[in-house]
């Protein structure tokens, strides 16, 4: 476990500026809560909150799609993989780092949301459910992006992730809503984007748990694929 922790901590350290930027965005929302009359701009605040959620998912996918590529490009991955760690541990470390960043972000959003949205009558319990849904979407998106990044460059990995996430959306439109849960990033995001003060969430805990479970499956699949991947191209 110690190598996984070290890889995760190293990832967070290396990505500290984007993470800080995300947290500053949340801080901006808190500032709005402090200085604006929220009763007059409820819809705007909720829109901002949803926007921040999308940022979180986008950054998670970006982190996942670029993590291996950056390490390979800089050749730092060689020093990692020359130590007594397995490829699975390496991927687990990267995903744990992303999970830590995403958890920190969702927690910050949850705390800010509890205060800001609480002022306009949003129930904290429901808000934290959405935060868990957001976290599940971030982790699943990141794990899928890591899977594709084993084979593709960050841009293509991001595009492939977007396509895979969009397929359930298309299926849900064509065949029925339950198809949207096959890879539930879309369902989790949709739940977040459609929430309002008086409306119940359109998904339940089962979809959130499915998101977490599929993130684990994507991690295992990425690890398996990475086992077979040549990580160092001869520089000669």
């Amino acid at each position, binding site marked *: 476990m*110690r*190598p996984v922790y*070290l*890889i995760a901590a*190293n990832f967070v*350290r*290396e990505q500290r500026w984007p993470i800080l930027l995300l947290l500053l965005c949340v801080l901006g929302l808190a500032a709005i809560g402090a200085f604006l009359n929220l009763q007059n701009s409820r819809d705007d605040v909720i829109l901002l909150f949803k926007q921040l959620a999308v940022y979180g998912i986008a950054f998670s996918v970006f982190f996942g799609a670029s993590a291996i590529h950056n390490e390979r490009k*800089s*050749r*730092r991955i*060689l*020093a*990692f*993989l*020359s*130590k*007594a*760690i*397995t490829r699975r*541990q390496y991927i687990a470390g990267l995903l744990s780092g992303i999970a830590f960043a995403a958890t920190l972000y969702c927690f910050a959003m949850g705390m800010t949301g509890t205060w800001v949205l609480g002022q306009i009558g949003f129930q904290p319990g429901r808000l934290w459910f959405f935060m868990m849904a957001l976290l599940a979407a971030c982790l699943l998106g990141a794990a899928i992006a890591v899977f594709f990044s084993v084979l593709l460059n960050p841009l293509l990995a991001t595009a492939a992730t977007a396509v895979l996430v969009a397929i359930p959306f298309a299926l849900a439109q064509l065949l029925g809503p339950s198809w949207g849960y096959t890879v539930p990033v879309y369902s989790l995001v949709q739940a977040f984007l459609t929430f309002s003060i008086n409306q119940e969430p359109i998904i339940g805990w089962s979809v959130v748990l499915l998101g977490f479970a599929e993130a684990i499956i994507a991690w295992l699949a990425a690890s398996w694929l990475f086992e*077979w991947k*040549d*990580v*160092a*191209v*001869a*520089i*000669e």
Partner: protein
Amino acid sequence: MPPVLEFEEVTKEYRSLFSGRVVRALDSFSLQVEAGEIFGFLGPNGAGKTTAIHLAMGFMRATSGRGRMLSRPFGDAKTRLRIGFLAENVALYHRPAARLIRFYGGLNNMAGPQLQQRTREVLESVNLSAESDRNVGKYSRGMLQRVGLAQALVNAPELLILDEPTSALDPIARVAVRELLLHLKASGTTVFLSSHMLSEVELVCDRIAVLHHGRIARIGHTSELLESRQNVQIVARGVASNMFPGAVANNGVVNFSITAADQRAVLERIWSLGGEVVSVNPVKRTLEEIFLEVTADATQGSGS
């Protein structure tokens, strides 16, 4: 005792995804490195040296063939607990050297006072104790290479694999690394050294292999390789230098080289002329000469 590092008929091909072009980096490559030796691994650029090392480290998989490191198949994570590796063009995270070494030690499941102690030792062994709190981002390339060497040594490896470890070092640091390698050998560590610094290899390696077009073109003990069986150097007294082609007279002796096949006839000629043979020695060649001889076709090829 089984070999520490062993390649058995290993072939590695790189295939271009789009053009389908296949480049064979290693071609039925076989090699055995014995315990306790410093093994020099030479070859021109593109010969397949780094590919062979990366296969051994498990960074990539062979197209065919197999290999073992410390009696375990290539790529076994637990085996790497006993391996030290320094990559060519070392790339490290920007943080203080001591912290960086502890980080890499941690990846090998080292922790606590043992790791602290070992970090101090390895930084001292590469002469970086005074700079251990400085961020490696501010280091020179030579210092970075020494930190890279320190991270490879942190787990006190049984087998140390070094890919161009002295390429960025100044002469003083190079001597220090050479002494370090000899010290490691004395303490039982096997060193697999890939380098273009032929003079370094000549000085420290027990055995040498020259890789060319993905195959071993020459292999042997350094002393045997450097000793020419084809030519001998003769020093004689009491004969005129113009009696022997290429002979040079100096301080009353003449000095010249002949082929080993002519040795007997030439010695008899010296004696028949009333001369005296002072010495007969095999001609020592440099590793550079051997390298150029082995890779001659590559040199010609690149020139055409």
